[in-house]
């Protein structure tokens, strides 16, 4: 699995990869650098997306016994003692859901475990590799060459680009993360052109661009 080496590499050319065709990259269209690090800038203005984000879209559950649709929570079920829940929640856990467009299930990450965007995105990389193993590859054609943009919903329920704000601020305000297909993220409006949006600089030798690779091969 070369995913680990991707994380370590320092700006080598994309075209040197063997699995270019099925490569998923996290970044805006045209961006070809692959490092999962990001130059964080202080941005005062929020950039939101015009479309509403629907996190309930997921591909079909493959198993025969698909769980019924989400229902209202039942009192006292599952039978877990309430202080167990409080204890886990209280103890330095900042769990947020991570949704990836096209993946059938959500994952959760604990933002407290990471000290920077780089660490977070490296962890997300590893999670993606698990997703590809489970995905239905009939959709492979759609997956080919796709790029994913990391976005998040903040306290005010606005959808923002991951990397906009300093890490600590992000950690405090992030409610959930969504890795959007770049085609959907294309509608950014004029704000996207602004200089202080470091992430989207499309340049081969830009080592700071936000990018996560997806290994399309199955293991």
């Amino acid at each position: 699995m070369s995913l680990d080496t991707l994380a370590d590499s320092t700006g080598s050319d994309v075209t040197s990869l063997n699995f270019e065709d099925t490569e998923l990259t996290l970044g805006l269209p045209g961006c070809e650098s692959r490092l999962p690090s990001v130059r964080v800038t202080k941005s005062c203005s929020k950039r939101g997306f015009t479309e509403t984000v629907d996190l309930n879209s997921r591909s079909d559950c493959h198993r025969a016994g698909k769980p019924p649709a989400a229902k209202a929570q039942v009192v006292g079920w599952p039978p877990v003692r309430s202080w167990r829940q409080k204890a886990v929640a209280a103890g330095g856990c900042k769990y947020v859901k991570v949704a990836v467009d096209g993946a059938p299930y959500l994952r959760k990450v604990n933002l407290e475990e990471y000290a920077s965007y780089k660490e977070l995105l490296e962890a997300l990389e590893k999670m993606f590799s698990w997703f590809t193993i489970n995905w239905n590859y009939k959709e492979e054609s759609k997956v080919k060459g796709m790029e994913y943009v990391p976005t998040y919903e903040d306290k005010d329920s606005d959808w923002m680009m991951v990397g906009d704000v300093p890490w600590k601020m992000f950690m405090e305000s992030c409610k959930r993360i969504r890795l959007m297909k770049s085609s959907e993220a294309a509608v950014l409006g004029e704000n996207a052109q602004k200089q202080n949006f470091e992430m989207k600089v499309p340049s081969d030798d830009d080592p700071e661009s936000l990018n996560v690779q997806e290994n399309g091969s199955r293991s």
Partner: protein
Amino acid sequence: MESELKRFRNSPNSEELTRRSSFPDEVIERVLSLFKSHKDRSAVSLVCKDWYNAERWSRTHVFIGNCYSVSPEIVARRFPNIRSVTLKGKPRFSDFNLVPLNWGADIHAWLVVFADECPFLEELRLKRMTISDESLEFLSVSFPNFKSLSLLSCDGFSTNGLSAIATHCKNLIELDIQENGIDDRGGSWLSCFPESFTLLEVLNFANLTSDINFDVLERLVSRCKSLRVLKVNQSISLEQLPRLLVHAPQLTELGTGSFSQQLTFPQYEELESAFSSCNNIHTLSGLWDVKAIYLPALYSACTNLTFLNLSYAALQGGELAKLLRHCPRLQRLWVMDTVEDKGLEAVGLNCPLLEELRVFPLDPYDEEIAHGVTEAGFIAVSCFCPRLHYVLYFCRQMTNAAVATVVQNCPNFTHFRLCIMNPRQPDCTTGEPMDEAFGAVVKTCTKLQRLSVSGLLTDLTFEYIGKYAKNLETLSVAFAGSSDWGMQCVLEGCPKLRKLEIRDCPFGNKALLSGLEKYESMRSLWMSACNVTMNGCRLLARVMPRLNVEVMKEDGSDDSQADKVYVYRSVAGPRRDAPPSVQTL
């Protein structure tokens, strides 16, 4: 001497007694004092009057599984020499918010009686009781020899009550505050132990949330040379932990504080060094928000570990695997489902002596999340851990075939608690009910004492239970069954049944009333959100006067429905401390 005189005064004819029995009372009492188990002692007391008397005078520990089954006066009168009392109060479903807050099970009346009749009481172990700060203060000043206090799933008190205990109990050796509904008002209670106090052997405050004064704790630990159990709370950091450990290398049970602080290399080395001198640890817990990179510091202390409680540590499978390689003697393991099936495979591969496994869910209420453990992990553990006899398994999917495989690999289950978290969920590969899974469990595991069922279940499951589970004592049922017949099968078929708790099942009056004689041989029955009516309950209460039949109504429910029913045998009659929401019929 006084008690001897008392006894002679009370007995009808002391000379006659001595002539009749083959041994003098003192000998019988000495022999009987070797019986520790309360079941054995109950059996002994039924043999004859001599033995009954000898037993009651020699009994030092009383276990009361339902505080309302007997009154404190009866207990104190029968056992004048008791030193230790274990009391359980509320129905178990109170842990899951199904019982109104002011339901009862208040310890105070017991303390008042004991202060009068059994002032030499040394130990009190409470589970699901209500205990106020006033009661704790009363306890601390009324019993001069008081040594041990253990509270689990209790409520009604705050850290002020703990202050009273620390201040007044000069002979305290154990303060064990487990998971409770405590009002944590700060850590100053710890400072209430006098500087001269050195007797502590057990200190557990892991589930308190407030900061405590570390210097005070450090001094306490260093001067209590007999300290063998220390479980601290999250306010104690990784940097502080070694400073405690160096004072207590004799510890056998350790609950760490938070395990996630950023450590410098020297600090890490200090931590590692502190653990390496703890050769006696057999139980390890805590590890709140654990940073896996620091786990290697623990390795040297894990050689003799038999119980590892990681149920508050959100570890990944790979991280767990690395740790378990250093725990070859593990017998009991509690984990969170973040370890997933991969982690459970590692359990199987590294822990051949495993007897107990509990897997807790990180996100029990969130249906969008699909991680956790599955049938694969369950099978993996069973393949490599033939001694496994206790399991508590929270999962989001299961199959009949997997459960059948598990019990085939591990036929010695005594406790099988499977919780498929989505109610009424069928076998995830066949879409069928999970009847055959539990059928396999009861057919194969002849020693089964405790069973919790879940998933989509028809009456067939209960037919199997009634037919095969001949040693079953505790059964928990939720969202299961098709008709009254299911519950009837269990009541008629399980001779050793003591506790039956049911929620959200289609069992009605016919089922309830089919167990009339049964309930007197059981500790209790709980039924909530079933089809039982007030009339059914009234009939039960009328026919069985030695049972207490209590009904709790929900707001806005139909007058004729008995929303929550709690039935239990009692020699104390109906209780007088029930709140308005609880009606005794």
